[in-house]
């Protein structure tokens, strides 16, 4: 045995006997020594099963914090002999089973004292949250086909959640979830639909996140939770949507639909807006046409259908009036009139239209009417201003015509005078 091997063995013995598996070696030299054995052998083996983890671990967030293979897998990394290195007596656990993974990660991530050494602000309730998730419940019931920590975060190349390459970065989460939730066979076994990603990809949320790059736009975990992932309960849908859409949620809770939906067991916002395929709402949601939502519950001629029709008509009338005012001001601007103040004032009609559309969630025509009425006043004022400008323009044209006529007369008079002078007293004479 060489002196280096002896030293490594001694260090390994010390590490295995006195240092908890989750604690990284203290000094850089010790870290290198602790890691070198596993990585050297696993890379040298050139085996598709064991080499890639050794390669991937180099970029792992845990490796950067000083953790080694043995921190999770146990064993003796300093041993030159595989049997010694993989000796269960030295804590070797090999590849943890899915059922063991949450607990293994929780060794540190559920331990506030351990986490304080690396990231004091990081939450330590992931394991307890996971136990409440559908994934966790099924896992602990013995179903190994559900997601565990490694399913989403990866096992050996775990990146920080704020790293855009991480599978749990906002723009990647939906695809990460879809790895399982888009698997038709797996979802069939769990009696779940496999088209949720396809539906989400049509939604305004997906557009905001992926096309506009708005990282605050919701993805799977925003509504379902991440570690405690589960579908929102029927009664809590409005609360979940309300975390972002607070005005709509408050108005909905103040509306007659709140209690009615609860009695009927309807899932709040989702009833009209869908859950995954949430498209941009249009005013036609209130119509009796193909896109109409109200008529699916309210028969034509009923009070509810009449209320929807009234709200629809009010909103359309404000929209028409605002557009007419905008077009009139645009015409005046193209004719060279100063319209910026009027255009600025008209923006209050746009705000009123937005408010009227939001106030639909009271499901009371008078609430919509109030906002519409305020907007109509603004739009009519702007339109009247455009009419005033058109008249002013006409006045200017008439004034110009009169002025040019007077100037023409004056010029004619001057020319007459010049000719008269020239006739009576020729130039140069």
């Amino acid at each position, binding site marked *: 045995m060489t002196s280096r091997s002896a030293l490594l063995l001694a260090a390994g013995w010390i590490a295995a006997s006195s240092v908890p598996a989750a604690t990284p070696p203290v000094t850089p030299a010790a870290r290198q020594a602790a890691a070198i054995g596993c990585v050297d052998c696993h890379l040298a083996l050139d085996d598709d099963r064991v080499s890639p983890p050794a390669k991937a671990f180099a970029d792992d967030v845990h490796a950067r914090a000083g953790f080694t293979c043995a921190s999770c897998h146990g064993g003796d990394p300093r041993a030159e002999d595989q049997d010694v290195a993989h000796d269960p007596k030295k804590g070797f656990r090999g590849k943890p089973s899915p059922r063991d993974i949450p607990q293994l990660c929780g060794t540190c991530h559920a331990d506030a004292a351990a986490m304080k050494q690396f990231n004091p602000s990081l939450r330590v309730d992931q394991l307890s949250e996971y136990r409440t998730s559908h994934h966790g419940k099924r896992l602990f019931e013995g179903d190994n086909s559900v997601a565990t920590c490694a399913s989403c975060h990866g096992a050996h190349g775990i990146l920080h959640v704020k790293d855009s390459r991480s599978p749990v970065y906002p723009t990647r989460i939906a695809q990460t979830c879809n790895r399982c939730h888009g698997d038709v066979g797996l979802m069939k076994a769990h009696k779940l639909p496999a088209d949720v990603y396809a539906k989400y990809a049509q939604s305004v949320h997906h557009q905001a996140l992926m096309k506009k790059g708005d990282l605050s736009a919701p993805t799977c975990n925003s509504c379902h939770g991440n570690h405690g992932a589960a579908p929102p309960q029927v009664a809590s849908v409005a609360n979940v949507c309300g975390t972002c859409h607070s005005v709509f949620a408050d108005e909905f809770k103040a509306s007659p639909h709140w209690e009615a939906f609860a009695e009927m067991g309807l899932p709040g916002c989702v009833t009209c807006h869908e859950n995954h395929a949430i498209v941009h709402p249009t005013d036609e949601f209130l119509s009796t046409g193909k896109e109409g939502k109200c008529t699916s519950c309210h028969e034509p001629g009923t009070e509810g259908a009449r209320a929807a029709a009234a709200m629809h008509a009010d909103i359309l009338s404000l929209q028409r009036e605002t557009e007419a005012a905008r077009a009139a001001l645009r015409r005046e601007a193209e004719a*060279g009139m*100063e319209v*910026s103040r009027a255009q600025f004032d008209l923006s209050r009609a746009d705000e009123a239209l937005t408010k009227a559309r939001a106030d639909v969630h009271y499901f009371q025509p008078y609430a919509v009417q109030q906002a519409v009425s305020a907007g109509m006043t603004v739009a009519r004022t702007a339109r009247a201003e455009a009419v005033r400008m058109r008249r002013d323009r006409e006045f*200017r*044209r008439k004034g110009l015509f009169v002025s040019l006529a007077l*100037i023409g007369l004056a010029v004619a008079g001057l020319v007459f005078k010049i000719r008269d*002078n020239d006739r009576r007293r020729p*130039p140069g004479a």
Partner: protein
Amino acid sequence: MAWLRDRIGWEDIAHLAAKKEVPIHRYTVFYYLGGMALFLFMVQVATGILLLLYYRPSSAEAFESVQYIMAEVPFGWLIRSIHSWGANLFVGVVVLHLISVFFLKAYRAPRELTWISGAVLLFLTLGFGFSGYLLPWNTLSYFATKVGTDVPAQIPGIGPLLAQILRGGSDVTGATLSRFYGIHVAILPAITTLFLGLHLILVQRHGMSLPPSVERRGPGRSMKFVPDFLLRDMVGWLTAVGILAALAALLPWELGRKADPFSPAPAGIRPEWYFLSMFQALKYFPSEIGGVPGEMIGVFLFGAIAAALVAVPLLDRGASAGRPSVWWNRAAVLALAGAVALTILALLPAGRPAP
């Protein structure tokens, strides 16, 4: 009247006016350009004074005050549009006046100082245009002024200090606006009054210049300045008023959007048409020529052209001696063609980016 006549003595002026004659020949029409420039200057003074009543020279209020003039003040739109259109016509007429005086060789002795004072008046006119362009504090004027005030910064040694003084700081800000306002309504008018007074006195003293080709033919016909020439002048002035009124009523001068110093410069930023040739020419200079920044060389070149323009009567001695100044005419035609070509290139969408 007699009391006033004894104290003011306008009979002398009337006598002078009655004596003044204007030669009649094939180029007489060019004599009207001077009077037209003077008339347009007076229009600018009158409309400018009216705008002063409502304009507020601060970055917070300038745009809004012009907006108020355009939308709320009775006939404010007319006054502001006439002032803006009038400025452009004024520059155009002054340039035409200079070109005609050059080719008619009116700078020959003893009218050298008349030319020099006129050339200075042209630069003052351009100064009026440059300083006035910023005053509405809109996006175009703001960014054009940023580019424009970068030009003097290229002068070695005093350039950065000059730009600093011009801007009232290291960048175009509200301080620049109040500075440009002061320059536009006080400093330039004061200097212009002096040079315009000198120019007019010299014109009266030396009378109208005859082009060499007319002079060689000997004494010709002439007309009285008052009333014959003045009446013809007035026809031109009234026509100018009609054109200005039509432009103001049919194509009111646009106000644009309020300047936002924190927003990126919009595409297609360019100065007024009379600076376009210089603006375009600067784009053709390489970044460095023999270790000297290209823009600096460009600014030097413009400075040399301006100096040569002022010194034309002193440099072209042959013209005063009665010899034809062929080379000067050729150089002037070349410079004019170049300026027109560069202006067209700057106006073409494809001509805007740097080559």
